[in-house]
Structures are given as C-alpha cells and as structure tokens.
C-alpha cells in the first residue's frame, strides 16, 4: 500500500537531514504508529505521504503510484484519495461543520445530492450530527478534531494519515479520537498515526515504527513506545 525506498529529506542544501535513508512498507488495512521525539522526522514523513513535501532522494509509492516527484497539478488528485488529520485541525473558520466536510467533496466535483447523502453519514460516524450548522469556533477541541476526521473520511480513503491528532486534546478527548481511528481502521482503512503520546501507542498494541534523528531505530509489529 505505502512504500518508502531509501528516502531522504533535506529542507535546504546545507540543512541537516530531516529523514535519512528511510525504507519501509505498510500493508493495506494496517494501523501503524510513527513515534519519535520532536525533530525526529515523523511529521516530515507524514508530509511526504500527502505530498506537502517532496523527498530529496529515494522513492515514495502509494499503491502503484510513484508520488516521489508528483507534479503540482496531480497533488489535488492524490489528496482526494488520502485522508489527512492534523494536530491543529485545519478547519475553515468561516464555514460551518457541514460546509467544512462538504468542501472536501465539492473540490472533487461531487454532486450536491451525493454530498447531502454522505456528509450526514460521516457526521453520524463521528457523533456530530447535531452540530452540523455550527462554526469551528463554537466547538471544543475534541469536536473540531472529529470534524477534521469526518472531512478526511468523506472520500472513503484507503489511507488516513493522522499527524499528532491528539496533540491539542485532553486525555478524554484523545481517547475518543483514537477509538474513532480504530473503528475506521476496522472498516479496512490503513491508518498512519504520527504521535509522541506514549499512553496511546502502548494502548493500541499495533505496529510501531520509531524514528530518531531522521532514521528508523525500530519497527515492531505489536510494539510499544520505547523512547524515554
């Protein structure tokens, strides 16, 4: 599903490597946690997957699609197939919950009728059916993150990348979000969870890839958070 071959990333010519010679493969339907301390390269790795950044060296493949040197015009197509959830939610502040989710479908040219079928369904999945007319500022952090997840789900993506989705949330809301991601994974979606939350990783008991200084230092099938 996702393959990285000898991938390196430098943000500028003389800058230190954010990722150095990374190789990994994630199978369809896996739930993989990418862990590491700040500056270890985990967010850079996530950004490579939805083409916010390009690899300096190596090859990144999603399914059969080599996205290493993806052209500007192809990025929207890729992003409509990969769901992304961010730590800061990245919701459009002047659009309602419904409109935020619908926007992801509108950019792909979905017809209004289908949008009005799908959006209520995903709102139900994330438990926000009664808050569809609210603006993001009228929601709690946990609710905003659930809107962000709902938006990532509307295309029924095969891959969902969640970059520190619990970073701005308290323990209770973090737990809700992880449960939601597990449910989505149960439906068959591959989840790539970037986090540095020890408790979450240990509770998941799924595959854990640990990064340090841009390199993979461990990749364990039913891993734990081993960093101090």
């Amino acid at each position, binding site marked *: 599903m996702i393959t990285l071959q000898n991938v390196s990333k430098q943000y500028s010519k003389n800058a230190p490597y954010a990722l150095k010679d990374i190789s990994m493969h994630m199978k369809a339907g896996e739930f993989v946690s990418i862990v590491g301390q700040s500056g270890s390269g985990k967010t850079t790795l996530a950004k490579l997957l*939805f083409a*916010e950044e390009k690899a300096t060296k190596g090859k990144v493949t999603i399914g059969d699609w080599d996205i290493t040197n993806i052209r*500007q*015009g192809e*990025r*929207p*197509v890729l*992003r*409509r197939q990969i769901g*992304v959830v*961010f730590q800061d939610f*990245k*919701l*459009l*502040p*002047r*659009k309602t919950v419904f409109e935020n989710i619908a*926007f*992801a479908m*509108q*950019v*792909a*040219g979905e*017809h209004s009728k289908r949008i009005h079928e799908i959006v209520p369904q995903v709102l139900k999945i994330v438990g926000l059916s009664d808050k569809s007319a609210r603006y993001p500022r009228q929601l709690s952090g946990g609710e905003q993150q659930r809107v962000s997840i709902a*938006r990532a789900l509307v*295309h029924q993506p095969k891959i969902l990348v969640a970059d520190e989705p619990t970073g701005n949330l308290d323990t209770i809301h973090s737990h809700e979000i992880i449960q939601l991601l597990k449910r989505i994974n149960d439906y068959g979606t591959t989840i790539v969870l970037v986090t540095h939350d020890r408790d979450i990783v240990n509770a998941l008991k799924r595959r854990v890839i640990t990064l340090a200084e841009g390199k993979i230092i461990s990749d364990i099938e039913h891993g734990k958070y081993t960093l101090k």
Partner: protein
Amino acid sequence: MSSFLSSYRVFTFTAQNIIRNFWLSFITLTIFVLTLLTINAVIFLNVIADGALEAVEQKVEVTFYFTPDASEDIVQAAQGYLNGLDQVREVTYVSAEQALESFKERHADNEIILSSIEEVGGDPFGHALVVSAHSSDDFAFISEALETPEFASFIKEKDLTDYETIIERIRTLAKRIRLGGTVLAFFFSLVAILIIFNTIRVAIYVHRDEIGIMKLVGANDWFVRGPFLLEALFYSLLAVVLIVLVTFILLAQFEPNINNYFGDIDVSVLSHFKENGFIIFGAQFVGLAFLSLLTTLFAMRRYLRV
C-alpha cells in the same frame, strides 16, 4: 468536475466570503471607493481648470480697425479670409455706424468725449472685425494673418498689443495648470495602485491559512483562486458603481455653487462627466479590475505552494 458545477460553487463561495467576512469586505470596498474618489477629484479639478482657462481664452479677442476708406466689400473679404483659418473661432463684423454707437454708449456719461465726437463731425470710425481664436496660442498667427498686400493697407490698427501680456500669462498659466494636473493625476494614480495592491495583499494574507487548508483537502489552484478573483472583480465593480453615484450626486448638488463661484464662466463639470462618463468610469473599472485581479493572483501565489 463540470464547469457549470464548478462555476456555481465558485460563485457560492464568493458570496459566502463577502458576507461572512463583512468587515474585511467593507474595509476593502471603502478603500477602493476612497481611492477612486481621489482620482475623480483630480479629474474634477482638471476639468474645472480647463474649463476656466478655455473660458478666459475665449474672452480674449483681437480687433482689426479698418481705415474709413476701406469699403464694406474689402472688410467682408477680410472676414471671409479670417473665417477660413483653422485657428479662428469666430469673426464678428462691426460696421462704422455700430462702432460709433457703441462708442457713444460706452462713454455716455463723459460729456467731453461726446462733445469731441460731435466736433469732429461725421463718423470718425471705420469698419472693424472682432476675431476670437480657439486657443490663446493662435493670436500671434491671427494678428499676422491680415498682413497681406490685399488687406494690409486698409488696416488702421490692431488692438492685440493690449492683450499680448494677458495672453502670454494665460498661456503660461494654462501650461502650468495642465502640467500640474497631469503630474497630480500620475501621482494619485501611483498612490492608488500602491493602496489597492496593499489592501488586496492584506486581504489575502488574512486568508493564507484557509488557502493552505483548501489545498490540503484536495482543491486545485483555480478552485481556490476562483472566489478570491471573483471577489476582487466584485469589489471593483461595486466601487465604480458607488463612485458613479457619489460623483453625480455631488456634482448635481454643487455645480450651481461652482458656477456661481466662476461667475459667467461656464465650466460645466457635470456635463463633462455625463458626456465622458462611460470612458472615465469604464477606464476606472478596467484599471481597478485589472490591478486587483493581478494583485490577487500575485498575492496568492506563495500560499498556493502547498
């Protein structure tokens, strides 16, 4: 995506942006209107200055006094010749009798002059031609125009000499005012361009995160740009419509006062704006729309690189 659906959504998002960012929309529109108001104020001043100068220029005339032995035929031939010149706006024939009558009227309260005329007896005045020019620049040419063998011997006097200084002053003043108006218009246009440029850049900067988010959820560049471009076009159109209303209301309100101020000189600013309104405001719309669209494209460029 079908282009109809895409266009419909771009229109919808534009309307949402304008309404939901009311204060930003209001401020942007206000700045557009104020900028256009400044430009139109400069146009207004130029029209007034031009009108006033033209009126003064038109009041200046050269009178050719003919000798008493010049027959009416010769004077009329001279009139026909002058009328044929491009530089001449109007030639008025004043007969010797009319000249005497008008002289008497002018000096009706001066017994000495009137008795002198009586004493001279007969009509001491010859025929005269009063010539006005299209421009004060032409008087020098016109004054030389009758220096031909055919007419020169019948010309007793030209009273251009009295006007030469004033004509020269008007010409200098006209040139300075027109140059000043051009410089002022250029300066204000430059200021207007910078203000519009900065206003749009700020408006786009405010939305920079949203632009990035739209890109991250799969919007292509034109889908993101569309509402911003349409918004810029809408503000340009609305600003010009408002400025047309403001200009005509103000002119209708104040033109009588302007005309009173200039006395019998008709500067007719309102009719100038009526006659040339399509070009004046059309050019402002095209300029403003072009500038705001270009600035929007330029300002968005960096935030679209996501």
